[in-house]
């Protein structure tokens, strides 16, 4: 029986909350927007009494449908959007504490201006207020993860271990999360702090705030040595906090987090390098990886992505500000130099020019963005690619409603970059599918976007996607490198790890969520495991 006024029945007004950026639509019976931890745990306790499944949502910018409910209740955390404090450690590093609904772009603005809303600061402790003064006087700090969609929430980013272009240098969200406060599905709470709670081998032992013991043996798989956001993060003797980061909203509800900040480099320059063919671009990536330090991002755009941008520039006034891609070029690599001294940055820039020529390119075919205005133009260029592809798909959907974007998110080891590129090209050509490829090539992590023109293309694309999951897994790669598995990639997780390891993951989930009510069907189909007993 619903006895909590914060739990509202679903109606037309809330229809948007049935969808996310994956463009998948689900269903639910009720929704809530808690503002405080107390409200959040009260709601969970009420829902526990009725055994209602709960899907947690942040900014709904995810691409794997983890925030799309299948049934039950939607717990939307966007109104838990307060910055709750600051900390500085003995080494001088700054940390910011936030609720899960803080939006990344807003956090960036606050950190850049060192201004936080006064109504939020009223609840800060004295230490936080003192640290703010130090923060204002210190060099600018930043939170390094940079997913394309800056309207993502901090909670969502933690749930899928988000990354972005700069993860090549700084890594994903994971290492920057130093504390999490978590509510379990029954409303019980616990706090995990990096460095404080560790596994014994693969044995987990945790005590909740109410004194309940959670013990279980964790999965036995070995994770790929590539960029990875596929399934639970598991290593021997690991930090307990890492189990929750990237757990796709399946183990607990994050209601507060502490994020470690980094000093913003004095120099941030973007460099786009254009090449006459894809081989040159791939060789450039290999050369940059080997020869250059302090490169924060290595991104790729293939000929189809560039063609889409050229066309958009011609046809749409919204895109007329795009820089003009040099004629006759086929592929582009975007590099970002992060340095403290200008002379070092120039050395690196000129080294990029030499490397371009060593792989057969021409350094005149490059764009260097050293000013904020120029950098904004390159960001616009990079973001225009997925935006244009979405527009194209929406257009095609009008004549064939079954068409959706099929975008991959797989990574492979360094040694397999050339091999995976050849495989993608060969298999796409073999099936006559249109595509556009771009993404984080520095981590051998490309988004291959299949652009179906018909229902038959759509079916062939899906089949191809599955085949790639098998091939990538065999190479020791990951089926999801940054978007998380959610619901859409659950079948690929089984391809990657196999059903026995999937059952181990289900056992871990069961230790926190015995009835599989939280984030149901993220990572794996709950119905397959809900009946199985604990070990």
């Amino acid at each position, binding site marked *: 029986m619903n006895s909590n006024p914060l739990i509202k029945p679903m109606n037309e007004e809330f229809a948007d909350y049935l969808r996310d950026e994956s463009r998948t639509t689900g269903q639910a019976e009720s929704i809530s927007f808690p503002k405080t931890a107390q409200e959040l745990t009260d709601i969970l306790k009420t829902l526990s009494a009725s055994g209602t499944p709960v899907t947690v949502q942040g900014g709904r910018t995810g691409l794997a449908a983890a925030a799309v409910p299948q049934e039950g209740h939607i717990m939307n955390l966007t109104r838990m959007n307060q910055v709750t404090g600051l900390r500085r450690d003995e080494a001088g590093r700054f940390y910011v504490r936030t609720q899960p609904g803080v939006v990344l772009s807003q956090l960036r603005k606050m950190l850049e201006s060192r201004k936080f809303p006064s109504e939020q600061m009223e609840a800060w402790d004295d230490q936080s207020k003192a640290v703010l003064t130090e923060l204002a006087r210190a060099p600018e700090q930043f939170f390094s993860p940079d997913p394309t969609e800056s309207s993502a929430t901090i909670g969502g980013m933690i749930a899928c271990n988000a990354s972005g272009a700069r993860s090549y240098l700084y890594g994903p969200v994971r290492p920057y999360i130093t504390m999490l406060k978590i509510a379990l599905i029954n409303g019980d709470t616990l706090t995990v702090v990096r460095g404080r709670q560790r596994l014994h081998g693969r044995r987990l032992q945790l005590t909740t705030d109410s004194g309940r013991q959670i013990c279980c043996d964790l999965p036995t798989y070995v994770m790929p040595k590539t960029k990875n956001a596929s399934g639970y993060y598991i290593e021997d003797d690991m930090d307990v906090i890492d189990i929750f980061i990237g757990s796709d909203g399946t183990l607990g509800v994050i209601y507060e987090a502490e994020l470690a900040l980094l000093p913003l480099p004095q120099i941030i320059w973007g460099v786009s390098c254009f090449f006459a063919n894809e081989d040159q671009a791939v060789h450039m990536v290999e050369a940059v990886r080997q020869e250059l330090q302090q490169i924060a991002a290595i991104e790729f755009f293939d000929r189809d992505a560039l063609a889409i941008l050229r066309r958009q520039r011609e046809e749409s006034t919204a895109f007329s500000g795009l820089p003009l891609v040099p004629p006759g070029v086929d592929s582009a690599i975007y590099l970002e130099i992060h340095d403290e001294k200008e002379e070092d940055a120039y050395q690196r820039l000129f080294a990029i020019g030499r490397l371009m020529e060593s792989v057969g390119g021409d350094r005149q075919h490059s764009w260097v963005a050293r000013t904020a205005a*120029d950098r904004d133009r390159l960001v616009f260029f990079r973001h225009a690619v997925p935006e244009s592809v979405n527009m194209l798909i929406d257009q095609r959907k009008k004549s064939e409603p079954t068409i959706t974007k099929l975008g991959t998110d797989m990574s492979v080891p360094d040694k397999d970059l050339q091999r995976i590129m050849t495989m993608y090209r060969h298999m796409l050509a073999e099936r006559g599918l249109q595509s556009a490829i771009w993404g984080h090539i520095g981590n051998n992590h490309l988004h291959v976007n299949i652009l179906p023109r018909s229902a038959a293309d759509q079916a062939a694309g899906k089949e191809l996607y599955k085949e790639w999951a098998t091939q990538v897994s065999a190479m020791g790669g990951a089926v999801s490198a940054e978007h998380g598995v959610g619901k859409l990639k659950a079948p690929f997780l089984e391809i990657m790890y196999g059903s026995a390891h999937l059952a181990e993951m289900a056992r871990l989930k069961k230790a926190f969520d015995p009835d599989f009510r939280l984030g149901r069907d993220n990572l794996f189909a709950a119905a397959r495991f809900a009946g199985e007993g604990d070990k």
Partner: protein
Amino acid sequence: MNIIVCVKQVPSTNEVRLDPETHTIIRDGRQSVINPFDTYGLEEAVQIKERLGGRVTVLSMGIPATERLLRDAMSRGADQGVLLTDKAFAGADTLATSYALSLGVKQIGEYDLIICGKMAVDGDTAQIGPELAETLGLPHIADVKKILSVDETSLTCIKLTDNGEQELQVPLPALITVLKDINMPRLPSITGVEFSLTAPFHSFSADQLAADTSRTGLNGSPTQVVRTFTPERGGEAQEITGSLDEQAAEILNLIKG
């Protein structure tokens, strides 16, 4: 075709950061940028040079650090930079600035065309272009949105006016000021950046230009800034009713005050 492009250094942001305790401005070295309108002038000049050959010189009056911006302009296609820098130039209004720039233009020597941005985003006067043309005794066209043709003797362009557009031709040498619709400025290439670091750059003092210091800096500036303030933004609305004639009469009354 030799072209001079005038550029101004302006702040890159209008947001300042205050120390929460002392309430003083924290200066973190956020760098200045080339006035955005001037970047369109530079691009137009470089495009003309690429078609007709010749040389593009960027000219600025400012503090010595302005060299960095002139080198940035050279990474985007300008061939040389000229900076007028002297304490005697400090505190100049538009009249004194255009006088100093006219000396710079004479120092550069041979030229066919001078291009300025429509205005600077910090001062918003839009006076420098026309005043510089007058000081040099050149014909000028302001607010150019498109150059239709240009050769060694004349330039034909479309100028934006309050009521529409005009197609105008002007004999060269002349000065034009350009709008941001005129082109899409390029990004520098690695080659361009390499060139800019060692490209020809000349700096001149008031003495070297034989400037009449009664016409430079504060001395040469008849404009007196009495006070600066942020105007209050009001959102008043008044409803006028009645027949069309009555409404028109009421509007006329309001305008007359």
